[in-house]
C-alpha cells in the first residue's frame, strides 16, 4: 500500500543532532521526492556480492571426478573437488519430464545444513524424472542424452553444456565463475588479523617483493582468503553478526545465440533486461522501497529468480531455486564459435554470434538450477508451471474493477462512494479499506467509532453483488490486550532476534512482532484468524490484502528484518528472506478458503512475492507514483510478472503517491482496464480521485474504459482458465505470440492479452496519436471499435484522442463478450454473450469460451462448460467440448459480429438439432461487418450458423 516518511528519514532525525539540524532536515525533505538510495545496499555494501563480482572469467578450480559417477535411471551424480581448498561437493544432474533438466551442486560434508524451500512450498512436488541416458565419455567430456536434448559435462575444468536438437542453448560455468563458499569454523584469530595485514599492505605500498611473498604464503595455507566482511558486516548503523560466516554460492550461465533475456522480477525496468556492465547487478531481495526510481536494477518488493532467454529459434528458461538474497549480472558478448560450430547455422548474415552471459550469486543455500528448454515460449511457461504451479482461476469479481484508497474513512464514506458509482453508472466490484479501518493498526479489528457496524456495511455492498477487501499486514502490535499478538507471543509463534528473544521492530502500529510464517503450524494458526468467529465483524464477501510482507520494518537495515534474526526452524532470515512474504499470503489464502470449507474461491493481494506466489495471491507493483513515467513502466513490470507465472498482477491505477492530473488518471484507467489486475489506489495525502469526481469529459471516458473491461470479462476469464492449465502469461509480450519476429523482442509498450487482443495503452502526456506495432506477416488486425483493418508486421501511427484506447483483435480469432453494462460482474452472471468473429485473410477464425458458476471450485469437479468456436467455409460452429454433468446455464447467445467479411450474405441460417431457422442480420459494406441478430440459443449448445 505505501511506505512512509518515518523510515526514509529515521537515521536522519535520530543520529545527527545539535549544530546542523537545519541541514539534516533538508535532507529529510529531499527524501520525500524520490527514493532514498542510501537506505539500501548497493553491491559495494554487500560482502558476497563484491566477492562474486570481483571474479574474473578464467579456468575454474572445480573439477568433477568421472570415476565417482553414480548413474540412476533419471539422474547422475558425481563428486566435485574444489582444488584450492580440497573441499568436496556433489553434483547431480536430473532428467525431468517435458524437456527440463535440473542441476544441483551441494557441499558434501557441510558443517551445517543449508536451507532449501521444502518441496510443496515452492516446487509443488518432487519434479517427475525422465530417463537420462549415459552416452559415454570422450576425453574429459561425459555425455547424457534425454529425448532430443543432451547434457555434456566437462569434468575439468568443470563445465556443463546443454544442447537442444544439437544446438547449444545453455552453458554453465563456461566462464569459470563457479564459487561455492563452503561451511567453515570461525577462525580463532579472526578477520581482525587480516585487517591488520591489509593495513600493513597499504602502509608498505611499493614493497612488491614482500607482498608477493605474502600472497604465495596465503595460497599455500588456504585458497580463500578471509575477508573482513565474511564474519561480520555493517551497514549504516546496523551490524550483521554472521555467526555462520561466508556461505554464498554463485555460477555463470550463458545463452549462446541469444540477445534478449527477460524475467527475474521485481524491477522497475524495461521488459528486456539490460546489461549490467555499468550498473549494479539486478538485485533480488524483497524490500519496501519508498518512492522507487525507474529504470534501474534495484530490488523491489518481490523476487522470482526465473529468467527467459529468447531468440528467433528458441526460448529457454533458467530457474534458480534459492530464497536468499540473489544478484544477477548480465552482459552481452559473442559466442565462442570454436566450441559451438552449430551456432553459425541459425545466425545468418552476421559474422559474430551473439551470446548473453549471466552471473548468478546468492548469499546462501545450494546451487539448484532448473533448465527449461522450451523450445517455444509457451513450452517454457508450461515447464515452469510444472515446477511451481499456476494461478488458479480467479473468482470473476476479482478480475473486475477494484476501488481502493488509503483510506475510506468510515461506513458513511464507504456508502457514499458505493452510491456514487451507481449514480454515475460506473461498474465496480470491490471496495477496499486500508490500515485506518482498524483499531490502532491491530489487524482483524475495526475502529469502533468509524465502523460501528461493519456487518451491515458488508451486507449493503453485498446486496449489489459487491465485495470488500480489508488490509491485514503481518506485523502485530505489541500490546498485551491485542489478542492476536498476545496469542502469537504466548504460543511462541514470533520470529526471534539473534539472541533468541522475540524480534521487536517498528511498523505502522509502532513496536511490533512478526509471526514466523515459515512454520506450517504458524500458518494454520494464522489461517484460523480469518474465521467468522475470530475475525469479528467480517463476512463471507470480505477478502484480504497482505501488505508490508517483505517484511517491512521501519527501524531495521534496508527497512526489513535483520539478516541474522532467527526463524523458529533455526534458519537465519538471510537464508529464507525472499520466501517469507509468500508464506504470509499463502496462510491468508488458506484462511479465506477455510471459511467455506474450500468450496468458494477467494482473493488475496500481496506486495511481497516469490516463485510460487501465483498459486495463492495476486500481486501489485507496490507504491508507484502518479506520474506518466510510472504509467508507462506498469506495462513492462506487469509483463515481467506474467512471464514468471504471476499472471494475476497489476499496478495502482492513478499512481499511489502524488496528485495525477485528469488526463493522466484517465489514461491510466484506460491502461488498467486492459491489465490483469485492475485497481485504483491513492495515498492518504492525495486529493480524492474516484472517477466520478473528475470533469464530465473524463468521467465519460473512464466509464467507457471500465465498461470495456466488463464487456471483455468472458475473454479474460477464459484466458485465466486456460492459464491455470498451461501456466501461460495472460498479459503477453508480443514475442510470446510472434517468437520469430525479431522486431517484437524489445517492444514493451504494446502487448497481447491472450492470443487475440493487441493493446497499446497511451502513456504519454498530451498524446493524440500512438505508434502501434502490428506483428505477424500476413496477419490482419481490427480496431475493436471502428473495425478499421491493419496489416501485420508494420508500425502504424494511429489516432488516439483522449477517448481512444488502441485495442485490436487479431484476424483469425473469436472473442466472447457481454455487452450489457451492470453495476457489478456478479449481476452479469446470466447475461447473454456476443461473439466477435474476426476473420483472417483465409476467412477463418477460432475461439473458445469457458463458463462456470464464476465463484466456486466446482469447476474442478467438472461443473463447467467449455465451448470451441470455429469459423470456416462461411460457417460458424459452436462445439461444446465440455459440459460437466449437472452444469447448466441461463446464458445465451445474443449476437454474432463477423468482422472482415468482404461480401454481404444473401441469407443467414442457424442449424441446431436438425432444425433450421433464418436469422436477421445487418451488413455494413464500408466496414465489412456483419451483425447477426439474436440467434437466441443457450450458450452451452452445439449449433452452426451458415452464411449463404
Amino acid at each position, binding site marked *: 500500500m505505501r511506505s512512509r516518511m518515518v523510515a526514509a528519514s529515521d537515521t536522519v532525525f535520530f543520529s545527527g543532532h*545539535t*549544530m546542523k539540524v537545519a541541514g539534516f532536515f533538508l535532507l529529510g525533505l529531499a527524501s*520525500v521526492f524520490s527514493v532514498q538510495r542510501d537506505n539500501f545496499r548497493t553491491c559495494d555494501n554487500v560482502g558476497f556480492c563484491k566477492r562474486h563480482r570481483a571474479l574474473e572469467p578464467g579456468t575454474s578450480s572445480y573439477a568433477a571426478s568421472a570415476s565417482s559417477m553414480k548413474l540412476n535411471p533419471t539422474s547422475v551424480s558425481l563428486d566435485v573437488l574444489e582444488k584450492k581448498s580440497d573441499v568436496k561437493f556433489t553434483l547431480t544432474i536430473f532428467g525431468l519430464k517435458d524437456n527440463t533438466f535440473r542441476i544441483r551442486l551441494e557441499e558434501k560434508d557441510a558443517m551445517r545444513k543449508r536451507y532449501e524451500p521444502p518441496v510443496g512450498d515452492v516446487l509443488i512436488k518432487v519434479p517427475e524424472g525422465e530417463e537420462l541416458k549415459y552416452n559415454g565419455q570422450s576425453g574429459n567430456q561425459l555425455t547424457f542424452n534425454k529425448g532430443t536434448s543432451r547434457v555434456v559435462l566437462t569434468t575439468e575444468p568443470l563445465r556443463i553444456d546443454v544442447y537442444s536438437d544439437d544446438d547449444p542453448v545453455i552453458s554453465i560455468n563456461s566462464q569459470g565463475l563457479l564459487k561455492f563458499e563452503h561451511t567453515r569454523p570461525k577462525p580463532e584469530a579472526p578477520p581482525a588479523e587480516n585487517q591488520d595485514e591489509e593495513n600493513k599492505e597499504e602502509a608498505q605500498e611499493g614493497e612488491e617483493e614482500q607482498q608477493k611473498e605474502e600472497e604465495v604464503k596465503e595460497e599455500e595455507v588456504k585458497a580463500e582468503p578471509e575477508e573482513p566482511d565474511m564474519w561480520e558486516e555493517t551497514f549504516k548503523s546496523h551490524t550483521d553478526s554472521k555467526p555462520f560466516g561466508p556461505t554464498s554460492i554463485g555460477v555463470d550461465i550463458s545463452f549462446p545465440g541469444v540477445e534478449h533475456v527477460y524475467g527475474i522480477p521485481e524491477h522497475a525496468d524495461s521488459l528486456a533486461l539490460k546489461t549490467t556492465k555499468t550498473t549494479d547487478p539486478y538485485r533480488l531481495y524483497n524490500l519496501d522501497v519508498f518512492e522507487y526510481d525507474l529504470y534501474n536494477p534495484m530490488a523491489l518488493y518481490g523476487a522470482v529468480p526465473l529468467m527467459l532467454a529468447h531468440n528467433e529459434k528458441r526460448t529457454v528458461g533458467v530457474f534458480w531455486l534459492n530464497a536468499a538474497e540473489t544478484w544477477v549480472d548480465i552482459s552481452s558478448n559473442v559466442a565462442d564459435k570454436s566450441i559451438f560450430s552449430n551456432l553459425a547455422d541459425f545466425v545468418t548474415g552476421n559474422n559474430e554470434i551473439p551470446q548473453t552471459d549471466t552471473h548468478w550469486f546468492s548469499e546462501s543455500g545450494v546451487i539448484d538450477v532448473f533448465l527449461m528448454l522450451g523450445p517455444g515460449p509457451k513450452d517454457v511457461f508450461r515447464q515452469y508451471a510444472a515446477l511451481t504451479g499456476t494461478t488458479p482461476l480467479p473468482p470473476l469479481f476479482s478480475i473486475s474493477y477494484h476501488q481502493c484508497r488509503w483510506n475510506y*474513512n468510515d461506513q458513511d*464514506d464507504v456508502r457514499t462512494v458505493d452510491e456514487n458509482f451507481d449514480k454515475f*453508472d460506473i461498474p465496480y466490484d470491490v471496495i477496499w479499506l486500508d490500515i485506518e479501518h482498524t483499531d490502532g493498526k491491530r489487524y482483524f479489528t475495526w475502529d469502533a*467509532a468509524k465502523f460501528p457496524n461493519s456487518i451491515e456495511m458488508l451486507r449493503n455492498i453485498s*446486496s*449489489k*453483488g459487491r465485495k470488500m477487501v480489508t488490509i491485514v499486514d503481518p506485523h502485530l502490535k505489541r500490546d498485551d490486550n491485542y489478542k492476536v499478538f498476545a496469542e502469537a507471543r504466548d504460543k511462541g509463534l514470533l520470529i526471534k532476534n539473534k539472541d533468541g528473544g522475540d524480534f521487536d521492530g517498528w511498523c505502522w502500529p509502532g513496536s511490533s512482532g512478526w509471526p514466523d510464517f515459515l512454520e506450517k503450524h504458524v500458518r494454520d494458526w494464522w489461517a484460523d484468524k480469518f474465521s467468522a468467529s475470530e475475525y469479528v465483524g467480517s463476512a463471507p464477501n470480505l477478502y484480504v490484502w497482505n501488505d508490508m510482507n517483505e517484511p517491512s520494518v521501519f527501524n531495521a537495515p534496508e527497512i526489513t528484518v535483520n539478516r541474522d534474526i532467527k526463524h523458529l526452524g533455526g534458519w537465519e532470515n538471510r537464508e529464507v528472506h525472499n520466501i517469507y512474504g509468500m508464506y504470509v499470503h499463502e496462510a491468508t489464502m488458506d484462511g479465506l478458503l477455510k471459511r467455506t470449507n474450500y468450496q468458494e474461491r477467494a482473493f488475496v493481494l500481496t506486495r511481497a512475492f516469490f516463485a510460487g506466489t501465483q498459486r495463492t495471491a495476486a500481486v501489485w507493483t507496490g507504491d508507484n507514483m502518479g506520474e506518466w513515467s510510472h504509467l508507462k513502466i506498469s506495462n513492462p513490470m506487469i509483463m515481467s510478472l506474467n512471464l514468471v507465472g504471476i499472471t494475476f498482477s497489476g499496478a495502482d491505477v492513478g499512481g499511489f503517491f502524488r496528485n495525477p492530473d485528469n488526463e493522466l488518471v484517465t489514461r491510466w484507467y484506460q491502461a488498467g482496464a486492459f491489465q490483469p489486475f485492475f485497481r485504483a489506489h491513492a495515498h*492518504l*495525502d*492525495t*486529493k*480524492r480521485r474516484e472517477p466520478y469526481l473528475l470533469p464530465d469529459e473524463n468521467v465519460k471516458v473512464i466509464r467507457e474504459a471500465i465498461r470495456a473491461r466488463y464487456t471483455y470479462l468472458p475473454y479474460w476469464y477464459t484466458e485465466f482458465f486456460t492459464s491455470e492449465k498451461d501456466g501461460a502469461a495472460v498479459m503477453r509480450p508480443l514475442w510470446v505470440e510472434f517468437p520469430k519476429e525479431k522486431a517484437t523482442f524489445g517492444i514493451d509498450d504494446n502487448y497481447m492479452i491472450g492470443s487475440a487482443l493487441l493493446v497499446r495503452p497511451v502513456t504519454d502526456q498530451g498524446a493524440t496519436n500512438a505508434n502501434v506495432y502490428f506483428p505477424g506477416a500476413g496477419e490482419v488486425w481490427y480496431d475493436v471499435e471502428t473495425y478499421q483493418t491493419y496489416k501485420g508486421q508494420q508500425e502504424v501511427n494511429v489516432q488516439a484522442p483522449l477517448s481512444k484506447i488502441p485495442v485490436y483483435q487479431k484476424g483469425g480469432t473469436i472473442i466472447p463478450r457481454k*455487452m*450489457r*453494462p*451492470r*453495476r457489478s460482474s*456478479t*449481476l452479469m452472471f*446470466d*447475461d*447473454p454473450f456476443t461473439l466477435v468473429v474476426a476473420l483472417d485473410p483465409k476467412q477463418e477464425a477460432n475461439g473458445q469460451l469457458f463458463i462456470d458458476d464464476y465463484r466456486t471450485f466446482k469447476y474442478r469437479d467438472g461443473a463447467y462448460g467449455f465451448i470451441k468456436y470455429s469459423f470456416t467455409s462461411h460457417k460458424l460452429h459452436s462445439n461444446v467440448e465440455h459440459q460437466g454433468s449437472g452444469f447448466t446455464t441461463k446464458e445465451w447467445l*445474443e*449476437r454474432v459480429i463477423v468482422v472482415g467479411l468482404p461480401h454481404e450474405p444473401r441469407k443467414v441460417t442457424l442449424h441446431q438439432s436438425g432444425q433450421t431457422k433464418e436469422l436477421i442480420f445487418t451488413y455494413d459494406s464500408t466496414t465489412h461487418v456483419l451483425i447477426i*441478430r*439474436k440467434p437466441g440459443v443457450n450458450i452451452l449448445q452445439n449449433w452452426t450458423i451458415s452464411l449463404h
Partner: protein
Amino acid sequence: MFYKLLLILSLSFFAQAAERPRGVSSAKASFYQPGKDFKCLTSGETVPWEFVNDDYCDCKDGTDEPGTSACANGFFFCENRGHRGSYIISSRVNDGICDCCDGSDEFDEKIKCGNTCDEIGRKEREEREAFRQLQEQGYKIKQEYMQQGKRAKDEKRARLSELEKQMAELTAARDEIQTRKDEVEAPETEAKERHQKAWEELKAARQAEKDRVKAAHAFAELDANRDNVVDYPEMQKHLEFDIDSDGTVSVEEAREYLDDSDGVDLAKFQDKIWTNIKDIYKPPAEAQETKEALPDEDVATGSQDEEDRGEDSAKPKEAGEEEEKMPPYDEETQKLIEAADVVRKEYDEAADKVKDAENEVNGLKKYLEVDYGPDEEFSALRDQCFELTDREYTYKLCAFDKSSQRPKAGGIETSLGKWGHWYGPEEDKYDAMKYENGQSCWNGPSRSTHVNLHCGVENKLTGASEPSRCEYQFEFTTPARCKQPEPVTGQHQHTEL
C-alpha cells in the same frame, strides 16, 4: 372519498398497463401501438412490432427495449403505485436487485421483489411534511434575517456615504491645524536643540576629566613597584593583555600595549595608552573572576556564547555612572514648548477623528463587499462562530471570517481556511461556502474548508470531516437556507400518477 378516488384511478391504470409494453410510461404509451411497426423515438429507425421488448436492442436510442436490459442506453419506467413513478436505466432490469419500489424491474424469477411503494411513499410523504414544516419554521426566521440584513445594509450604506462626505471636512480641519502646528514647532525645535547641544558639550568635558582620573587609578594599580613608570613586566602580570590567548603575556604583547616602549609615565599613559587599553584592562579583583570562569568557556556551546556576550554588553551599563540629568529649559524655550503643546493637542484630536472615520469606512466597506445572499439573509451569520466537537477535535466556523480546528485534548488552533467565496453549483451558489488558504499542510496544499449549507431552524455546525488530506467538509444548518414552502394542495398525488 380520497381512497375511492385512488381506487378508481388504480383500476383505470391497471387496464391501460396491460395494453402497453412493459417499462413504458403512460405518457409514452401512444408511441407503442401493438401490431404496428415501431419507430424508434429519437433515432427514427423502424422495426417490426415483434422487436419491441424481445430482449434484443434494435434502436440506436434504445427505445425498442423499454422493458428489458438489452439496450445499454435505454430506460425502464417503474409505475410505483402508491408512491411515484420513475425511470431507471435499463441495465438495472432483471439484474437481481429490486430498484423499483413496486418490484416491476425484476420479473425473470432471479429474485422476488416485494412492493414497498406504500411504505416508501408514506415515509417520503412524512419526510416531505417534516421538511415542509422545517422550511416553514425556518423561513419565518429567514424573513427576519432578510429584514435585518436589508436594514443593516441600508444603514451601513447610508452611514458610509455620510462618512465619506464628512471625511473631506475632517481632513481639511486636520490639515489646517497641521499648518499651524508646523509654524509653532519650528522655533520650539530650534530652541530645544540649542539647549541640548550646550548640555552635550558640558557632558563631554566632564567625561574627559573622569577618564583621566580613571587612568591615574589604573596607572597606580599597574605601577606595581611604584616608580611612576608603568613598564612591560608590570603589564605582563595582567593576563587580559594576552593577545594570542596562549596563557601568558609575552614581552611583545606587553610592549605593544605600551606603544612599543619599555615603559611610560603617567602623562603618556593618560594621553596615549589608556584609550587603547581601557576596554581590556581589568582591575585586579575582576581579573581573578575571569580566570576562574575560563575553563568553562572551552565547552561552551553557541547558545552559551550568546549569553556570555549578552552579559558583556550589559556590563558597561551596570558599571556606567548614573546618567546625569539635563538641566531644565530656560524660560523662553519653556514658553515656546507650552505654546506648541496646545496646538499639538488640537492636532491630535483632529487626526484621531479622521482615523476613526477611516476605520469605520473600512469596516463598512468590508461588510458591504461580502455577498450575503440575494436577500441579505446570510448577514445574520456575520460575526458569529459555531463549534462542533467530535472524537478528536473541536471544529469552529466563524461565518464570513474563518474556520479552524483544535484538538479536543487542548492545544493550538489550526486554521482550516479564511473566508473565500460562495461555492455552490452555478444554479445555486449559496448552497455552499469555501474557506481557503488555511495553514499549509506538510508536503501538501494549504488547508481549506467546504461548508455545505442546509435549511434548519437554528444556526448550527452539524458535521465536520476530512475526505481528502487537508480538505475539510463542514455541514451547517441555518434558517437562511430555508425556502418558502410551496402551498399544500390536494392535487399533488394526481400529477404524480
